[in-house]
């Protein structure tokens, strides 16, 4: 016990004197968590609170074009900037290059006429089905032949964001189309225009969509960027001890300390145990610091606060196993790496890869099937699932056992591989 205590003291001293390593282990993940959360939060706010600048060139002179612009305005997502209808598309594109807007919409010349023709066609078909007399003088225009609305978008717009803009525009178009069909039908039946109040009653829907996050504790706390990011970057930080711990093992091997330690009447396992205890404490400290920053500092920075799980014992156990897994991984890299360059390179790249396939960088549900299989071997995946179970779903330890058991199994395998490596290299 005395030898272990002396070794832990030595490891703590070495750790504290490696200021860059400490900086890397604590400051970097904190900066990462703040930056990523702030960016994701501002994206969230941009979509929900701010408006997207939208240039509209309405070349149509009829009512449908104007109605479409009005419907888009009602969506509330866009800041509409109408441009002269005679402005050539080339100049419109030029304005987008100047970042006047990220999206531009060109409503074609005959939009109203074609919309009306389409409505007449649908109304006729409907009346025909009802058995009502059909006005055969009205032309039936194929919908497929209608000139499309053109949406120009700046290439910086990401696919998901573009799709949500597209969805908003499509719903506006749907309103205009439905209104036109309704008016035509009403006129055909009653020979009078559809009253505004009735139109509103028919078009507007009162059915709201209540978005309720599922939770085990019934708290229904709405998840935010902090709640998603803090657990992910905490795991990332824990696994990045590979740089410090791995290097410390490589350094011992290279500077000959291993040789001296091997000729001393103490088993090298004491040194390994000491390193594990020291760095396990470091990983737990990392988690505590990052969680505290999320819970207390983030709100002061205008970011959403981290809601800590109710099951704090569960949080401690998940962090403990995650930390031990990170330490075991670092030890394995340190044992097999021959140089500092190998250790840092292999360590950093493998953590990033495991984070990617583990769902830290891209949500696991969005991954292709082949990657979902690979995901199961990433300890970061199981750690993230366990944290999400506690932080997002309001679960308890028993609810995340299914995640921490594989994590524990991976840890045991990493430990065995490290010991095997030490034995092969005649170090223990």
């Amino acid at each position: 016990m005395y030898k272990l205590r002396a070794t832990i003291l030595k490891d703590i001293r070495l750790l504290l004197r490696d200021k860059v390593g400490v900086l890397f282990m604590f400051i970097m993940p904190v900066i990462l968590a703040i930056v990523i959360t702030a960016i994701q939060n501002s994206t969230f706010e941009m979509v929900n609170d701010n408006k997207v600048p939208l240039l509209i060139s309405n070349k149509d002179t009829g009512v449908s074009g104007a109605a479409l612009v009005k419907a888009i305005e009602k969506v509330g997502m866009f800041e509409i900037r109408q441009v002269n209808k005679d402005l050539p598309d080339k100049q419109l594109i030029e304005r987008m290059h100047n970042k006047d807007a990220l999206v531009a919409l060109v409503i074609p010349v005959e939009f109203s006429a074609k919309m009306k023709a389409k409505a007449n066609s649908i109304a006729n078909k409907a009346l025909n089905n009802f058995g009502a007399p059909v006005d055969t003088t009205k032309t039936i225009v194929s919908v497929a032949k209608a000139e499309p609305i053109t949406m120009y978008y700046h290439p910086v717009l990401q696919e998901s964001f573009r799709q949500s803009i597209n969805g908003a525009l499509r719903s506006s178009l749907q309103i205009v189309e439905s209104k036109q069909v309704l008016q035509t039908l009403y006129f055909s039946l009653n020979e009078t225009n559809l009253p505004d109040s009735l139109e509103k009653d028919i078009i507007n829907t009162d059915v709201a969509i209540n978005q309720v996050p599922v939770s085990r504790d019934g708290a229904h706390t709405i998840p935010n960027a902090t709640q998603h990011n803090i657990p992910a970057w905490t795991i990332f930080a824990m696994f990045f001890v590979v740089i410090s711990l791995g290097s410390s093992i490589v350094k011992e091997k290279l500077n000959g300390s291993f040789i001296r330690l091997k000729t001393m009447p103490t088993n090298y396992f004491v040194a390994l145990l000491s390193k594990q205890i020291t760095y396990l404490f470091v990983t737990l400290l990392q988690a505590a610091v990052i969680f505290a920053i999320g819970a207390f500092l983030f709100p002061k920075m205008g970011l959403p606060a981290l809601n800590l799980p109710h099951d704090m014992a569960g949080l401690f156990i998940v962090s403990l196993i995650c930390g031990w897994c990170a330490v075991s991984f670092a030890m394995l890299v340190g044992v097999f790496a021959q140089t500092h360059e190998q250790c840092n390179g292999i360590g950093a790249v493998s953590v990033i890869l495991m984070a990617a396939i583990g769902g830290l960088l891209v949500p696991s549900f969005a991954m292709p099937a082949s990657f979902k299989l690979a995901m199961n071997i990433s300890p970061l995946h199981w750690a993230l699932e366990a944290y999400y179970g506690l932080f997002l779903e309001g679960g308890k330890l028993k609810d995340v056992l299914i995640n921490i058991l594989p994590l524990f199994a991976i840890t045991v395998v990493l430990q065995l591989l490290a010991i095997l490596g030490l034995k092969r290299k005649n170090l223990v």
Partner: protein
Amino acid sequence: MGNAAIRIQNLGYSYPGQLRNCFTDLNLEINEGARFGLFGPNGAGKTTLMHCMTGLIRYTTGSIQLLGNEVATFRKSVNKLFAFVPQDFSLYHELSPVENLEFFGAWSGMTTPAIRKRTQELLEVLDLASLRNKPVQTFSGGMKRKVNLAIAVMNNPRILFLDEPTVGVDIQTRHVIINYLKELNRNGTTLVYTSHQLNEAEELCDTIAMIASGSIIAHNSLNNLLTEHKEDGLEGLFLRLTGKSYIDVDVI
């Protein structure tokens, strides 16, 4: 002849994956209390033999006994009998001499009061007291050599293996180190020393062995060997026994 501190019998060893044997049937006996020097050209097998004696390498055949204990069988008890000063600095450069001695003292099985007492003694004897709390990485090569030696002798080993203990040090530091080694020997520690500094070896060693291509080609007291080969110094003896042309057998 006194009791054997080290007895090597029919030692055989070859590096993994190599057909050529490093040692074949090597025999050597070093008396307790000796100041023994092992010399030979580069690649002759000095360091490998020292690694076999300290258990760092597991020999293939034969036997090595330290004070009657077989190295391969009684690893833990044997490790209590000796200490090793490797050629490389085997210490923690970020720690101070005191912190290094505290740690390695604990690993030698010493108690806290014993560590404190011995640390104080060694810092005084090796002239390190004024640097006791400074990180070793700020030291000169000579100072680092002294700390490297101090760590090894913390628990007063009965046998001390020294692989080039004075490489790159100035004359004053060498003087301090050699004098201290002699003092240790007077107190009963057997020294097993290897170096290319033949003048220094001549001053320190009373018994020597010459090794070439994995075989002991001469082993006797220094004086006897000098008389036998009609040489007045170790350098001349070395050249006579190992040849004047450059030899560097790799790997051994």
